[in-house]
């Protein structure tokens, strides 16, 4: 199907995103390109309509003085009109700079200064207010365009424009200069920078990753042919637009394959919207899959005993044979029959509740996914796969091929991508999807791409016997215990995070005698557990300090220790001491990145007293921490944290408990 999509002559000229867009507007003008839920009803925009709007926005931007090479900051939730403005900037040879919508004003100011932004297209009043707050620090910023006019009627700054106004200006401009935009699109080259995405800044300040049209198109084409995506597919676009994954799936692949993207009504309605749309192609970080499963499990715990036992029975059947059926492996007739029955009674309705009835391909990435979690989705017949990639590689390095799914690998190198390992285990990649450069940072660019043109990912991993890549940890995070054993914090943390009661873990142990851990409990799961036990608690801090909760976490820790003991490489990194933190790690306090990864060094510095207490053998430690609320106010929380010891196991021992 995919090779009939465009003739050979066509595809040669389809080398930039604006050309792809115009191509779809001609080839399939009446197919839905985008849907958005407005006033409770899904509104559809066809490819022809999208092309017309993009042309108008682009012409409007030109009227405002947007020039080739200018950068357009784009901030907001996944709204069709923001995607259009991305395409509009590209039509003019400009570069959209995607920014995280939940970033506070000061973080935005940094990116906007770094990228030398003259034009910004933002979603709503909230974002406009941030722009006004930092306008003083941004002498280059000339125009701010907003999508949703609500609450902005009394804003009379000259540099503020409604997107409707820009659209109208563009329509008039297009009437007067009908050839203008076509010429601009013709001037575009596939080697032009198509977008700038900022790295999350796990280490140091964020860097602007410049990706060319050809890089993103190569990554998108590879992915589309790998998973046989066509213009009949549907995807729900709900992950931050500034994240490379969303740009690949909802923008690049949608424009390459011509499928439909669906924008949810708001962040809170994603679950319901997912059910209504029933996408065929779905992407979510492990956290989302985990939350969905947690919600299902919590609801099952409250169900009647008959329902619970039916559920349990068929989940056991699924565990036994579900994944094999999905992979096309031989399964006994009796099991097939049972599975078919289960599909009617449990899996089908469950998938429907999750909004996953129509899914052909689902991906997860961004963090390691728990084996139980991964197996659960595959066993009920959802083709969940893992991929591996980073902002610098258009999120396109390794993909799991259908039918060859391994829980702890990220699959084989994707089409046209070359992967090799450095001597220290670091993963190196080369291919058409590599970044052009970090913006204005030749030093960083030179540092990350070696002499042979390989991008150094900074991840440590190895290939297994079937050529599947396994990721262990960040290469620089892998350390050594004083006893000489390897310490891979992520590896241990992920094992713990797979327990539903644990939300976040930070391990310490590099150049120390033994491994210790900070634990964040999952308020929803533990709260529900506490409720059923009849325990009273006043909030996160109170719940986290309850002795029963410590017991609950200790069980998890000891289970992980037993597991680690059976792995000869890891047996020394069993967790000897742990504590449950009094507050949730939060991006607003700088403890997590905006993509919710732990900033290890920052946490280590901030909670130094706790780490000292671990290794000094203290039983408890007082700590006071400042917390920042979403509106920027700060407050202090303090607690006397208990530190507990966990049982460890001799190497090679089987699970004793």
């Amino acid at each position, binding site marked *: 199907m995919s090779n009939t999509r465009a003739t050979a002559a066509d595809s040669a000229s389809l080398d930039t995103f604006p050309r792809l867009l115009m191509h779809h507007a001609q080839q399939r003008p009446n197919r839905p390109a985008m849907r958005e839920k407005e*006033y*409770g*009803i899904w509104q559809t925009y066809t490819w022809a309509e999208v092309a017309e709007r993009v042309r108008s926005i682009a012409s409007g931007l030109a009227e405002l003085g947007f020039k080739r090479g200018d950068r357009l900051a784009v901030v907001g939730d996944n709204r069709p009109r923001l995607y259009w403005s991305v395409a509009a900037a590209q039509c003019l040879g400009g570069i959209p700079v995607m920014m995280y919508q939940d970033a506070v004003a000061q973080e935005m100011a940094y990116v906007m200064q770094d990228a030398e932004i003259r034009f910004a297209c933002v979603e709503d009043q909230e974002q406009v207010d941030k722009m006004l707050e930092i306008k003083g620090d941004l002498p280059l910023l000339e125009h701010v365009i907003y999508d949703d006019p*609500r*609450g902005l*009627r*009394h804003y009379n700054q000259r540099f503020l424009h409604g997107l409707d106004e820009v659209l109208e200006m563009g329509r008039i401009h297009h009437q007067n200069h009908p050839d203008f935009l076509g010429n601009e699109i013709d001037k575009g080259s596939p080697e032009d920078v198509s977008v700038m995405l900022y790295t999350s800044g796990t280490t140091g300040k964020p860097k602007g990753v410049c990706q060319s049209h050809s890089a993103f198109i190569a990554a998108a084409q590879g992915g589309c042919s790998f998973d046989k995506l066509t213009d009949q597919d549907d995807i729900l676009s709900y992950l931050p637009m500034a994240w490379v994954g969303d740009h690949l799936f909802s923008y690049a692949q949608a424009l390459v394959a011509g499928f439909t993207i669906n924008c949810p*009504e*708001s962040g*809170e*309605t994603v679950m*319901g919207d997912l059910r209504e749309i029933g996408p065929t192609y779905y992407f979510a970080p492990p956290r989302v899959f985990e939350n969905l499963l947690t919600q299902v499990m919590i609801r099952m715990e409250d169900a009647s005993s008959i329902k619970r036992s039916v559920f349990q029975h068929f989940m056991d059947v699924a565990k036994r044979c579900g994944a094999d059926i999905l992979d096309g492996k031989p399964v006994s007739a009796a099991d097939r029959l049972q599975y078919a029955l289960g599909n009617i009674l449990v899996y089908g309705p469950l998938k429907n509740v999750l909004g996953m009835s129509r899914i052909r391909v689902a991906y997860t990435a961004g963090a390691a996914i728990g084996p139980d979690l991964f197996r659960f989705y595959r066993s009920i017949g959802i083709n969940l796969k893992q991929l591996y990639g980073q902002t610098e590689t258009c999120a396109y390095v390794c993909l799991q091929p259908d039918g060859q799914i391994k829980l702890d690998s990220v699959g084989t190198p994707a089409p046209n991508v070359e992967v090799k390992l450095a001597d220290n285990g670091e993963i190196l990649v080369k291919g058409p999807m590599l970044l052009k450069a970090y913006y204005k940072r030749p030093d960083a660019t030179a540092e990350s791409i070696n002499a042979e043109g390989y991008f150094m990912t900074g991840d440590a991993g190895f290939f297994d016997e079937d050529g599947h890549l396994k990721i262990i940890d960040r290469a620089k995070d892998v350390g050594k215990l004083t006893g000489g054993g390897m310490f891979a914090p992520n590896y241990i943390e992920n094992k713990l995070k797979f327990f539903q009661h644990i939300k976040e873990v930070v391990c310490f142990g590099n150049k120390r005698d033994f491994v210790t851990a900070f634990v964040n409990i999952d308020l929803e799961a533990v709260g529900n557990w506490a409720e059923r036990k009849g325990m009273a608690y006043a909030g996160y801090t109170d719940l986290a300090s309850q002795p029963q909760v410590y017991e609950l976490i200790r069980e998890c820790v000891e289970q992980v220790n037993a597991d680690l003991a059976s792995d000869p490489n890891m047996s020394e990194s069993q967790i000897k001491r742990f504590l449950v933190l009094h507050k949730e790690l939060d991006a607003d306090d700088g403890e997590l990145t905006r993509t919710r990864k732990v900033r290890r060094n920052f946490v280590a510095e901030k909670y130094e007293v706790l780490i000292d207490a671990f290794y000094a053998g203290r039983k408890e430690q007082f700590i006071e921490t400042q917390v920042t609320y979403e509106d920027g106010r700060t407050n202090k929380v303090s607690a006397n944290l208990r530190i507990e010891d966990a049982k460890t196991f001799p190497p090679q021992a089987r699970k004793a408990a």
Partner: protein
Amino acid sequence: MARQIGDVIVDLQNISLRFGGVKALTDISFNVKEHEIRSIIGPNGAGKSSMLNVINGVYHPQEGQIFFKGALRKKMEPHEAAEQGIARTFQNIALFKGMTVLDNIMTGRNLKMKCNFLQHALYWGAAQKEEIAHRIKVEEVIEFLEIQDIRKTPVGRLPYGLQKRVELARALAAEPHILLLDEPMAGMNVEEKQDMCRFILDVNDHYGTTIVLIEHDMGVVMDISDRVVVLDYGKKIGDGVPEEVKNNPEVIKAYLGTSH
């Protein structure tokens, strides 16, 4: 401020209300101007809710006159008040707990529905068209108050603060000229109060709705009101912009008491 305070829309003159021998309101005069936020404050039992009930026709004062949009108002029943564009919310939430948020808000459109019961029961032709038109209005309100995610949730399952917001939504669905809010923030936490304040200001700003508000939280009242009237034991003891009222010795006495 772009919002223009207009002419007097409700003018209450020398209102007295008695329940048997109990005087609820005594000789109270004040007015409400178009597009303003007018607050009524006072200690418990001061007669605030009675005052609202007089405005929307639940109680009929024994003495005094009410001018509504310049015309002397005869004895008016609540449904007539509603038809003339006066909507209200209640101190104790008065929603249909078993119905969804959407259905509850739809009831706010009740008065604007032209088709009869039978047509609606059949849901055919004009009735269907009408319902769709009303649904659009309701969806606008849902978006305005940011309650899209609970559209299909039964009201009884919602937390208190959200129920209050749904009640406001239902009142708004009637597209009122005057909105009477009876303690919209009672029992809310700080964040919910902030949200509610923002919505009240937004409603006033966006739709130009005149708002008469009863509220106990002085911070809120002084922040968002254009003018405040103060009642105590059924008598008016203060009236004016928040700054004046705050410094009025009578008001301070009523709220804090005096040493004897």
